[in-house]
């Protein structure tokens, strides 16, 4: 048995050697590469670029909300079609809101967490040489740039980009002429999303297969780092939910171009024009959209939770508290997230009993979320924290996740939701819990794994400054939005000046915009640090953070095939930090048990690490 495995591994090693024998061309190596690390970095850079695009759109939106009707001659000169005499036009405003949401949710947070970290980390952390389907993986990435081009093209076609919001509610998104941008722009939006969904589908199949089949010897499921668990669970969520949105997008395309009426009821009169449609239901779109949409928010936050668990443990020099509960709560969240979509539709006129059912499932999902939060806190208790940039962002994540998650209790209660639905209270909720917390997870991950990816450390001084400005910035920007919502300010208003009851909110809106601009500017510190460290950062070595997981066993950056020596063999769970009696305050997963025989007989591997198979 042992011999068989050894000879198999030797064969694999030979194969690797022969593969790296002839250097692949530049194009095969960095552009159309099948190497999971290159693909991960491609996803990462693409998403960061899109974050700049989506973030700039948010700045324009905030300018308008603080100073509606003000003339911006410079902007008017740059975007002649979007501004009239320097004043932003409402159709452009709605296009910005729609594209900002679409880009941030799908082309930044989903692509960077699942695509970027998923690709980069899964094979390395499970001890594999690459993904299960490297070519599929490459195709999955290369669907993203076309999707982006199709999406951005919407700005340049007749009628402009769609203005129906990232949720694209029908009939607004189904009937041409119901809004500017509801022509070709909306069609391009749908095609772009359909492309992206296919890409996510390929990606998630790949992640699931890889985690199930390519784990290194000794890497039992219950020895997987929590990052891998989280990415695995998110992939299952994607696999089950994205096809539903793809189907919905295709149905909507049919409604728009081929005369069906899935989402269009009889008797529709738009702009005085009676439509020849019948039999459809606009709420069907909402059900299909949110059946994806709610799991989607967890597809985003779950990998961020995994990253944060990993970063907290490493930089606190302490095992993650409650590994099994952490895995269990991930699964519970994933399962429940398919049963709560109706909480986005409490005011749609659904039967009150259905509202009660969705309230119940929604509030249940808060229990596993609470368990995770308390386990993170317990991880910090009697830790020895190193305040690196990665760690600071992980701490910030916990704070923001709590702040944003708690207002879910208000929104999840349908009677209270009646007042707060579609107000800035909701905007505050999801920008804190999804926008900011997930972004903090991303930053924690980048500061943590940058040395592995590029072999150099990021500048810690700049990183910490970036953290302080961003942490204070997101609170200053998004927390006061609760007050706007409490005062009744609706989402997606082009100007809050029309209504009497919104007039008094002006100073608050100005303050929020000022914070948002500061927050946006602070991100250039990160851009600078990233670019600078790429070329000038201090050399990292294999394991700069003295971490336990397998990726730190590889060189930085890892070569093609990942392992310069024999592929790793796993002997213990991933969180043996500060093990009493061990020589150092961390014991890598590759360290064999006898290497840390303990004098006092204290538990060595830890409860969750015991046993080969699980």
């Amino acid at each position, binding site marked *: 048995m042992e011999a068989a495995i050894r000879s198999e591994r030797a064969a694999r090693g030979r194969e690797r050697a022969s593969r790296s024998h002839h250097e692949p061309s530049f194009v095969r190596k960095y552009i159309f590469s099948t190497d999971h690390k290159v693909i991960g970095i491609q996803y990462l850079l693409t998403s960061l670029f899109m974050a700049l695009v989506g973030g700039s759109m948010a700045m324009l939106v905030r300018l308008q909300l603080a100073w509606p009707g003000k003339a911006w001659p410079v902007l008017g000169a740059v975007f002649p079609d979007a501004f009239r005499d320097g004043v932003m036009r409402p159709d452009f405003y709605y296009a910005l809101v729609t594209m900002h949401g679409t880009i941030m949710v799908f082309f930044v947070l989903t692509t960077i967490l699942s695509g970027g970290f998923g690709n980069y980390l899964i094979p390395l952390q499970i001890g594999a040489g690459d993904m299960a389907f490297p070519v599929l993986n490459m195709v999955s990435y290369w669907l993203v740039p076309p999707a982006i081009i199709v999406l951005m093209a919407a700005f340049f076609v007749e009628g402009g980009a769609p203005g129906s919001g990232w949720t694209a509610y029908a009939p607004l998104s189904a009937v041409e002429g119901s809004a500017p941008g509801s022509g070709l722009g909306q069609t391009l939006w749908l095609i772009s999303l359909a492309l992206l969904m296919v890409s996510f589908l390929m990606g998630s199949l790949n992640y699931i297969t890889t985690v199930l089949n390519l784990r290194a010897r000794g890497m039992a499921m219950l020895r997987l780092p929590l990052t891998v668990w989280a990415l695995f669970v998110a992939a299952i969520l994607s696999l089950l939910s994205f096809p539903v949105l793809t189907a919905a997008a295709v149905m909507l395309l049919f409604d728009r171009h081929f005369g069906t009426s899935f989402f269009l009821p009889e008797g529709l009169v738009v702009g005085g024009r009676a439509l020849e449609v019948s039999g459809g239901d606009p709420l069907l779109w909402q059900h299909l959209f949110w059946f994806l949409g709610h799991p989607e928010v967890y597809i985003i936050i779950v990998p961020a939770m995994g990253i944060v668990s990993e970063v907290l443990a490493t930089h606190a020099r302490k095992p993650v508290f409650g590994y099994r509960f952490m895995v269990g709560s991930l699964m519970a969240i994933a399962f429940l997230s398919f049963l709560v979509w109706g909480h986005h539709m409490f005011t749609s*006129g659904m039967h009150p009993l259905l509202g009660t059912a969705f309230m119940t499932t929604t509030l249940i999902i808060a229990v596993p979320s609470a368990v995770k939060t308390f386990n993170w806190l317990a991880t910090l208790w009697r830790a020895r924290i190193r305040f690196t940039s990665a760690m600071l962002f992980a701490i910030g994540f916990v*704070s923001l996740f709590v702040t944003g998650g708690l207002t879910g209790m208000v929104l999840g209660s349908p*009677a209270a939701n009646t007042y707060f639905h579609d107000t800035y209270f909701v905007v505050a909720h999801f920008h804190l819990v999804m926008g900011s917390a997930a972004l903090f997870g991303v930053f924690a991950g980048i500061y943590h794994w940058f040395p592995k990816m590029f072999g150099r450390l990021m500048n810690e001084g700049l990183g910490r400054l970036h953290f302080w400005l961003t942490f204070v910035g997101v609170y200053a920007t998004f927390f006061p939005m609760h007050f706007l919502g409490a*005062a009744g300010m609706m989402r997606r208003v082009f100007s809050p000046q029309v209504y009497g009851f919104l007039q008094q909110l002006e100073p608050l809106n100005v303050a929020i915009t000022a914070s948002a601009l500061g927050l946006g500017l602070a991100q250039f510190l990160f851009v600078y640090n990233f670019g600078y460290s790429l070329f000038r950062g201090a050399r990292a070595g294999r394991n700069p953070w003295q971490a336990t997981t397998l990726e730190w066993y590889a060189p930085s950056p890892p070569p093609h095939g990942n392992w310069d020596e024999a592929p790793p063999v796993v002997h213990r769970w991933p969180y043996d930090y500060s093990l009493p009696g061990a020589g150092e305050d961390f014991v890598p997963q590759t360290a064999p048990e006898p290497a840390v025989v303990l004098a006092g007989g204290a538990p060595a591997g830890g409860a969750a690490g015991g046993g080969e198979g699980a």
Partner: protein
Amino acid sequence: MQAETRPGADPRPAADPQPEAEGRGWGLITGVTVALLALGALFTTLLATGRWWLPPVASAHGAEIDRLFYTILVIIGTVFLLVQLTLAYFVLRFGSRPGTRALHWHDNRRLELLWTIIPAVILVALTTMGGLVWARIHTAPPPDAFTVEVTAEQFGWWVRYPGPDGVFGRTGPGLITRQNPLGLDPGDPLGGDDVVLLNDLRVPVERPVRVFLRAKDVIHSFFVPELRVKQDAVPGRTIEFWFTPTVRGEFEIACAELCGVGHFGMRGKLTVLSPDALEAWLAEQGH
């Protein structure tokens, strides 16, 4: 068989990434920041209640919604402060110190069950409370309710009163013209006395008002902040809801669901008046 190079055996990297970061000074700064942000959140919320907050409630069920909201707010506010301050304290207290190690402690079934069960209990309470209020505001409207129909259209609110006969006339989308925006059937005698107005809804105070809500084109949402009323208007459906205004005066009807380029200006007027004044006004409209 074992790989000789273990990461643990690696020399420390050339540049130590966190020399100063290991001190407790950073813990102090970070912990204090988390705590200050949490207290700042509390403080600004208290300040905001005086100025940027829910407008005074003007309906019977609205008072119940407010009570529910404040109950939830106190609960989540307490949890918010406890968790954030604990986080702040741990960060402040447990910075790395040379020569010492963290506690190797990672499982405690008791504790974990405790913090599974306590949130579960709180959430059962919240669910029950929320469910009761939700059920109460969705009972059938009282039979003596004052009845109107509201039809949303890009970008305004058509209001129809049934007239003296108390019955709405038939409508059909095929009959809609510029002059007949709701498509009233001229052949239906019951519709002859219907009164149709744009963006002008008047209802009696202290009497249940029952609304039949419809939409002609896309989804809109009928929102009156003071009444704590928000109901989507969905094309193809007639959605019924009711409320009892308790305060006389003029209020704004806002559209709360993105409905196109004029969404932000889809403003209607709601006037709550005494039943007598309303009767007199309605009689005038009939002519």
